[in-house]
């Protein structure tokens, strides 16, 4: 699997290259600035791009803008955005085109190599990887007066959180140490309570949940 990596801090870039190579990824390019990233995304057609939000030369949200721009020319290009902070505002922009294949994680998540690599693979396969902090922000904003959400059991809430992060049933089952069948049951309960249409497609399912959580009241 070919990865384009954009990160301006040498130590982090080097670490990421090492880690991804160790897990069998092929690094097509590891760049350190916005223009280089734009060029790499255009010319190298990677399977997935791992991008830091803040890049030179402006040190603003260069990486995010490049990723969004690249996805406008090539819809569904898998992009995993990394940042020192997560904002619901950015998550919303990344998810706005509804194509999926989006990841948005805190840089801290690379501490857990297994989970991080799992997230990269999920995004490359067209799935979603949302940082738990984004999901918690969404939930804490909604739960105050959201009746359907209030009807969920604590376990169903846990499942909802993991599902919104983009985990598959198998992934959720492993995390909560329950069977996949139990997760499937929780999932269908959640969808019934929130009034969402059940879909067999995992990616559609995640996007539907995220859209539900992010709708304006």
């Amino acid at each position, binding site marked *: 699997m070919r990865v384009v990596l954009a990160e301006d801090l040498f130590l982090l870039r080097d670490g990421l290259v090492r880690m991804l190579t160790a897990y069998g990824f092929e690094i097509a390019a590891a760049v350190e*600035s*916005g*223009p280089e*990233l*734009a*060029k790499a995304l*255009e010319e190298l057609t990677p399977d997935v791009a791992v991008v830091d*939000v*803040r890049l030179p*030369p*402006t*040190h*603003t*949200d*260069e990486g*995010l*803008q*490049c990723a*969004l*721009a*690249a996805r*406008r*020319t090539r819809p569904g290009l898998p992009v995993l955005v990394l*940042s*020192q*902070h997560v*904002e*619901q*505002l950015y998550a919303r922009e990344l998810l706005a085109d509804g194509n999926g294949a989006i990841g948005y994680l805190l840089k*801290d998540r690379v*501490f857990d190599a297994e989970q991080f690599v799992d997230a990269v693979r999920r995004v490359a396969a067209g799935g979603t990887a949302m940082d738990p902090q984004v999901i918690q*922000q969404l939930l*804490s*904003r909604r739960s*105050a*007066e959201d009746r359907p959400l209030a009807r969920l059991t604590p376990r169903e809430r846990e499942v909802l959180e993991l599902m919104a992060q983009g985990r598959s049933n198998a992934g959720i089952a492993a995390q909560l140490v329950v069977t996949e069948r139990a997760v499937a049951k929780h999932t269908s309960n959640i969808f019934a309570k929130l009034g969402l249409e059940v879909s067999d497609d995992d990616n559609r399912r995640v996007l539907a949940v995220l859209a539900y959580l992010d709708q*304006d*009241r």
Partner: protein
Amino acid sequence: MNTDVQRDDFRARTRQAVLAAVQGLVLALVMPPVTVLCLAFTVMSLELLPLGLGLFLVPPVLGAVRRYARARRELAAEWGGVVIPVVYRPVPPGAGPWTHTVTLLRDPQTWRDLLWLLTDMTAGTVTALLPAVLLFFPVQGFLVAAGLWRAYVHGPGDTYWYAFVPVTGQATALLAAVLAAVLLVVAHRFTPSLLTAHFRLTRAVLGGGRGDLTERVRVLTETRRDAVDTSAAELRRIERDLHDGAQARLVAMGMDLGTIEMLVERDPAAAKELIARARRNSAEALEELRDLVRGIHPPVLAERGLGDAVRALALRLPLPAEVSVELSGRAEAPVESAAYFAVNEVLTNAVKHSGADRVWIDVHHTDGRLRLTVTDNGRGGAAARAGSGLAGVERRLGTFDGVLAVSSPAGGPTMVTMEIPCVLSWPKTSSCCATGWCGC
């Protein structure tokens, strides 16, 4: 309809005229004794200076003069709308009688105060008395015409002078009434302006020659002190947070790593446990640093500017917020930052105290001013009281000549408006877009 308006206008003017006359009368009757006392005590304390006794008398006496002058300044502002700046040089805290006296005597404003006492006794009293005289003298004229002249004029050849009208009988008494009527019309029109003239005189003597500039210097000195205090306090907070937070966690991690090194062969299970702890510590250190960074300069603000930073802020609120932003560019970084934290503080206030279930945030820039409005539908009753969060916001905005206004009737809604004068510049476009390949 039109006559109604005219009648209301006439009544309002009459009220003003009478009020000005009464106020002038109060000033002319009550103030001169106080002024004379102040002047007498000042002169006495100054005369006692060579004896040394004055060192202990001058500071309290001049202090009293200043308090009196301050009270008169307040009256000028309240009754006449004439603002007289207060421009005393600060006396160093803990100064002895000698330093205190010398500082007072070297302050030009002290001598202006004394000059004012002299002027107030004389010209001041006369100008204060004028409105009353102008309003009440015509009354006497009418009374004379109504028959009071008989009390003054006892026989033929006897003359009573009403101003320049010689009253000798009913006919000339009526002439006095005509003059009184003319005077009354003049009084009705000009009494308030006459009182204002009194306050202007006070300002001319008490306010010094460069009142506006001195006032500006005073404001700048104050806001600069506030700015320095605030940033020093911020640095202290950051230092403490780093010291007790991330720094302590890194020390703990280093220690754990040392122990792990020792344990890794002898007791791998224990080493593994410590590794997990070290990882937790590093995650928490990062979390603390992130919070700290957000408090210093929020990343979204750096990346996107004020509009999106406020939007991101609204998304973090526990209640629904409507944000509208109209900015054609970006303000300077310090202004953006001040504006962001001001909105943040006002929102925090609203969430904590107002009991609102909805807020509206409006950010726009017109006529060289950045205007930020935060409205909530809570219970109202908010005010920028000393020591409150809003007062803190007001002080910090002051550094940028910004202002804050609160409208918060009991029962709500609360609307906090902040304005900062500033210019917007065009934002830097990110270079990925500048290449043009992406079509944005």
